């Protein structure tokens, strides 16, 4: 009964490919996020959706495109993958006033070769 689930857990792909990561939450939360964690463990926000509406769009290459078909799902599509995109990508969700912060998924480790 995973609260925030991401697929796949691992993704190894070649430079130039296009790939997607999916995220689903069953907590009834209305806001979902994508964070990128680099090799030094630094966590940086990329995007956030509230009830299917994009509310945070940080400085991210436009090769990254989030899509939220409904408030329980937030997917991340990446075009023309580059070596520097290798990282762990975390999906998270929260409700309203951020009581108890975010609930994170277990991450997708993306390796671009």
């Amino acid at each position, binding site marked *: 009964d995973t609260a925030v689930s991401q697929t796949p857990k691992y993704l190894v792909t070649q430079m130039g490919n296009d790939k997607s990561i999916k995220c689903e939450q069953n907590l009834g939360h209305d*806001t979902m996020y994508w964070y990128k964690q680099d090799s030094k463990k*630094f966590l940086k926000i990329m995007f956030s959706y509230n009830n299917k509406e994009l509310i945070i769009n940080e400085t991210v290459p436009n090769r990254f495109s989030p899509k939220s078909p409904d408030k329980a799902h937030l997917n991340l599509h990446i075009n023309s993958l580059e070596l520097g995109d290798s990282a762990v990508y975390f999906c998270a969700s929260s409700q309203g006033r951020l009581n108890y912060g975010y609930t994170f998924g277990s*991450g997708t480790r993306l390796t671009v070769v």
Partner: protein
Amino acid sequence: GENVGLHLPTLSVQEGDNSIINCAYSNSASDYFIWYKQESGKGPQFIIDIRSNMDKRQGQRVTVLLNKTVKHLSLQIAATQPGDSAVYFCAENLPRSNYKLTFGKGTLLTVNP
């Protein structure tokens, strides 16, 4: 292991000792703070939070202290156990930021049995 070569701030303690992990946050207008624990291969997990109208909050074996004058947060863990070994992050939320959490660098806590 996953944390080798990270060059994160590290804290090494003996089992049973108390641990103190420190964090300097960036924005004096932030009004909500969270400590997260990230075990190897997992997503960050909520530990404890504090709002800016408080300077101390206690949980089970954990205490968070907030010093707004110097923009400093600390996490105290009592009677540290091997299961506490993880990377610990502080995160701050700025009002009217669309629930955005900005994470600090992370501290690697290692508990020696």
